[in-house]
């Protein structure tokens, strides 16, 4: 029975991600267009909102090329390994008071742990492509994703310290509005580290268009490539929703559906901010990225942790 539930939630997560990606890509194209003084998609639907409905079927009807020299097994199924964990991670996000799809006792850790499987997927895809650019991109991606996991985890940890529980629902029950100023620094670290985790600008080195053309998915075409893109958007959605819940209380502000709307609203703002950042800043270099992680972000996360521990003493 629980398998069926799991399957249901898993499929729901996929649909959420797919729908989110459709809206998100459109939104990103619009946001970037406005920032760049453009119009963005115009033709299909109002303000081009149905543009993705053309893009997705097109990718679906696109030939699926597998390079001859590629490791066919890795190449074919690496997108699954990238996408599935991210979809799974959505299951522990609390959307409702006292409820999360997988309200595990170690839910918060689950959220951090499971997507790290997709690092492996990226490495496999890169290596499996047997392509120099892809390999470079994949290695960059892996190094970056594992590195930024540390400050991200520490930032989340500070909320856990305040909440005293790893269980999402319990954590949310304990959430109070004044945590926002206390964990603001943590949110900053979480925000930046999440951008790096989802390989978006200014940390989009693995797929850096100006250097590696497309990075680890250079040789992927059609729907498999779309899966990578969906994973990217999925990671963005998951991070935004999780961050909105943990650092901004998510649904806690209003009861019921209104709360859910607030939660999604905050997440949408975070996503917009991610896009804003991407379309504003240049890209870091690999060494700067690493140095930034270890010498700025990690210490800041530690500072936040200490702060949270100090505050937690009074609880």
């Amino acid at each position, binding site marked *: 029975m629980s398998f069926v539930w799991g399957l249901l939630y898993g499929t729901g997560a996929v649909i959420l991600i797919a729908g989110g990606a459709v809206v998100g890509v459109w939104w990103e194209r619009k946001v970037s267009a406005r920032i760049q003084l453009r119009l963005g998609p115009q033709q299909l639907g109002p303000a081009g909102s149905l543009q993705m409905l053309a893009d997705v079927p097109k990718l679906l009807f696109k030939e699926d090329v597998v390079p001859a020299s590629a490791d066919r*097994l890795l190449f074919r199924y690496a997108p699954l390994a990238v996408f599935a964990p991210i979809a799974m991670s959505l299951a522990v996000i609390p959307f409702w008071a006292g409820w999360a799809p997988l309200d595990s006792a*170690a839910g918060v850790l689950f959220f951090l*742990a499971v997507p790290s*499987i997709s690092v492996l997927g990226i490495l496999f895809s890169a*290596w499996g492509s047997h392509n120099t650019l892809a390999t470079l991109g994949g290695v960059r991606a892996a190094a970056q994703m*594992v590195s930024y996991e540390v400050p991200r985890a520490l930032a989340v940890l500070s909320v856990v310290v305040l909440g005293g529980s*790893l269980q999402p629902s319990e954590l949310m029950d304990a959430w109070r509005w004044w945590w926002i100023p206390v964990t603001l620094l943590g949110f900053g670290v979480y925000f930046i580290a999440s951008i790096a985790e989802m390989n978006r600008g200014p940390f989009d080195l693995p797929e850096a268009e100006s250097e590696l053309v497309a990075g680890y998915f250079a040789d992927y075409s059609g729907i498999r490539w779309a899966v990578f893109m969906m994973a990217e958007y999925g990671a963005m959605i998951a991070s935004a929703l999780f961050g909105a819940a943990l650092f901004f209380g998510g649904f806690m502000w209003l009861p019921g559906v209104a709360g859910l709307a607030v939660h999604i609203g905050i997440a949408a703002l975070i996503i917009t901010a991610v896009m804003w950042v991407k379309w504003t800043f240049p890209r870091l270099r690999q060494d700067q990225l690493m140095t930034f992680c270890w010498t700025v972000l990690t210490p800041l996360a530690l500072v936040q942790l200490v702060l949270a521990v100090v505050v937690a003493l009074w609880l």
Partner: protein
Amino acid sequence: MSAHDLAVASAAALVLAGAAGTALARSATRLVLSLGAFLLGVALCFLALGSPLLAAAQVFVYIGGVLVLVLFALMVVGRGDGESPRVESRHDPGAALVALGLFVVLAIVTPKRPSGIAPPEMVSPLAVADVLLGSGIVAFELAGVLLLAALLAVLVIVKSGGER
């Protein structure tokens, strides 16, 4: 066979399959893949045995960290001719013998648990924390020191790497 048993058995099967794959893999990528399956199986085992914290930690540290490290290590030592890195398993019968012996010993030593009893309760992270901060405090702090030592070791490696 209860649902619980089935879960454990499935996880164990994954572990065994992964282990076998790791032992028999010819190419490095398959080896890592098998290792991943093995580690995932262990995580599922932990979950099935009622410790989600341990399961998550297993995934976090081993799959997200150690496995990547292994993959990197494979890439670092990759052969210069650009061939797919191959694993030179000699499949020593002696080693197999030792492994088999170990298995037998473990099978004997491990206390038997009768099938059909209720699955264990979920272990709360709070309980783990209690243990770690209670009786396990020394071990906990020792782990911290150990990690510090490891960090310094890494620095040494980095330094020597930098020199080269």
